[in-house]
């Protein structure tokens, strides 16, 4: 059985079908890239995996446990799924500095407060932002914001890491850097990673598997 399984998952907004009968199987510790045009339903798909959006139909299983089933009326709350997500525009919290972002996650994970400072250092080092604990999002550059969003997701030690268009607003150099970042995460933490993009170049050299989504339907999937 695959690590993540989506079975005929569908979602409509106000009668307009946005994701249609999507079925996907993703193996543990792999990197999967999902490609599709803007408006094809990529973000909605990720949000349904994380539990932020409730599908209308279908079934989602993670690590053998059903987290959603329309038939059996199962819907595990997002905070219980342990899925990390890097949002498209990062969604950092403007009133918290970098250290507080990580601390918020650690606290939610019930890590005792004595252990937190060391972990905050560790995660900031992981994204090469040592010593930036007290910087607020408003004081960070675009690339730094994205790395902080990544660190926030990683500090959660998520089973699955979802990245929504991680490359779309980065220049070539930053993009290369962030690809390396993701590869490193994958090797060191063995997280299962899913990212979406509207650019086929973003798949090469990073993804093990890919899928193509068009108008809410998966029209192609395979290994790279």
């Amino acid at each position, binding site marked *: 059985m695959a690590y993540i399984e989506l079975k005929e998952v569908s979602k409509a907004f106000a009668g307009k079908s946005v994701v249609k009968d999507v079925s996907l199987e993703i193996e543990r510790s792999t990197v999967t890239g999902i490609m599709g045009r803007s408006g094809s339903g990529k973000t909605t798909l990720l949000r349904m995996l994380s539990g932020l959006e409730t599908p209308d139909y279908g079934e989602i299983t993670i690590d053998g446990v059903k987290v959603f089933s329309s038939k059996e009326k199962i819907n595990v709350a997002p905070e219980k799924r342990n899925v990390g*997500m890097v949002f498209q525009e990062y969604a*950092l*919290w403007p009133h918290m500095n970098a250290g507080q972002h990580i601390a*918020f996650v650690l606290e*939610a994970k019930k890590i005792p407060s004595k252990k937190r400072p060391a972990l905050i250092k560790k995660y900031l080092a992981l994204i090469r932002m040592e010593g930036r604990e007290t910087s607020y999002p408003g004081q960070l550059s675009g690339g730094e914001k994205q790395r902080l969003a990544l660190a926030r997701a990683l500090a959660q030690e998520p089973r699955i890491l979802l990245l929504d268009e991680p490359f779309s607003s980065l220049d070539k150099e930053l993009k290369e850097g962030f690809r390396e970042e993701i590869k490193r995460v994958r090797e060191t933490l063995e997280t299962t990673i899913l990212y979406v993009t509207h650019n086929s170049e973003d798949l090469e050299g990073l993804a093990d598997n890919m899928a193509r989504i068009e108008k809410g339907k998966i029209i192609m999937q395979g290994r790279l």
Partner: protein
Amino acid sequence: MSSRSWLKIIAITSFLILSVLPVAYMYVSSFNLSRYTWIFEDVRQQHMFETTMILGLGTALLCILLGVSIAVLLEYTDIPFKSCLSVLVIVSLLIPPYIMGISFLSFIGKNWVTSEIKEPNPEVASMVRRDRGITNSAMNAAALQNTLLNKTAVTMPPVQQKPWYIPYNIDPYNVQWAIVILSLALFPIVFLLTSFALRNIDERMIDAALLLRKPLGAIWRVSLPMVLPQILVGGLIVYIFAISELGVPSVMRVDTTTMEVFNHFTGFFDISQALALTVPLAFSIAVLILAAQLIIGKKPFFTVPSAAEGRVILKLGKAQKALGLGYIFAVIAVSSAMPLGILLYNSGLAVLPALEKAGDSILNSLFLSIFCSTLILVPSFFIAYFYKGVKWMDYLILAPLIAPSAALGIGMIGVWNNGYTAFVYGSFLVLAFGYLARFLPFTIKTLEPFMAQVPASVEESGRLAGASFTKTVSGILAPLLKPGLLTAWLIAFILCMRELDLSVMLTPPGFQTLPNRIFTLYHYGDIRTSSVLSLFLVAIVVVPYIAIVFMSNASKWHTSNSKK
């Protein structure tokens, strides 16, 4: 000079002339040091000052509790009748607080005695009457308080027995109950500011927290801290209203410094003593602003507003829904339904005769309030914009609030009935200027947190694109600040519609406002007509409020669709 610098100068000068000058004029022209030292030697004064502080702080805290909790319920949960409730919740702001006090007292079966506010001494009055018409205004203001209190007393049947629904004897004549009553009247201010601010949060920021915490935790730790500046501004406005309130403390028999100020004003015509008494109150406001700044800290609250979609974040169970509904209904019942019921009872539904007698005052108030609340946005916008983060400005903005409205009124007469400016005093403009003077600090403070959320880059990108400053403002800043401007407009409109103290003092010939007419009718014993008019007042403010709630819902839908 560039249009930018011109605007900056115009904004600050108009603020200084409109708001600061009349108040400064009063304090400077009546300064007398011995009056200040006296306050510190008098034990009774100190006691009253303490009571006033307790009243102000207690009311601010309770309003934050009520306003924020109801805002969260209505913005984030799937509680039924949302839009209907969010309209009902603000009604209490439009009912004069003393009516609320009186209806509460009669509800629990208490009589209330006439106030102890001093009647003007006629001999002294005629002596000073020559003094620029000031005395007349002061007499009006004193008559106002006495009438409001006495006439209402007459209309309420005396109750001697404890009603069956009150389990034990309540002693309502203390500062605690005054806090409760005032909070019920003023909490919509915090509610309005908080709910408009919550609506303005990028919903993905909440999503990011929802991955880690239960909805309540996400709201508590992420949403509320993000709107903390708006919550604190709400608390501050409430505090200022609470410490300047006369009606509730007098029906609840709580002696406050503010009543003492009024007595010195209108009973003894001792203006310099009255003003000296307001200085410690002003000081307390400054201390609170400082405290708020320390709490908020230097955090750069940069987030480009991208409206949330009114999504349900917190799903309530059946029992929770019932509990939440019960809570909001209870608040609405005691804060609006009860006093409205009394107004309705007194009105005898005599709508047409009332319109015949006072239709013009309704139009006057509507015109004046729309005029002022629209005009006030211009200086508010530019002051909030140009003086973003300028510390001394934070204090200057609140300077006009230190004087009670009666003092401001007298200052207005001094400044605007003076040679070349006399044309202002003779027309409705004097009222318009008075409202601008009184409410500018509130609208500026309301806009500030919204302004702080717009990152510099948003505006810079516009300027780099070659847009002129005015174009950048009209094309980028103003649309981005629409939620803030709407909130400020609405708050100004409500405040103008319900304003009474200044109207009484500054009424130009042939231009009576609705609250003023309500008061006059009360004065001559026409309780019926004045009750009908009070109900009209409520209705008039509820309509634009509903329109704004719907408009902001519609624009949310618009942005969410165009985004994708």
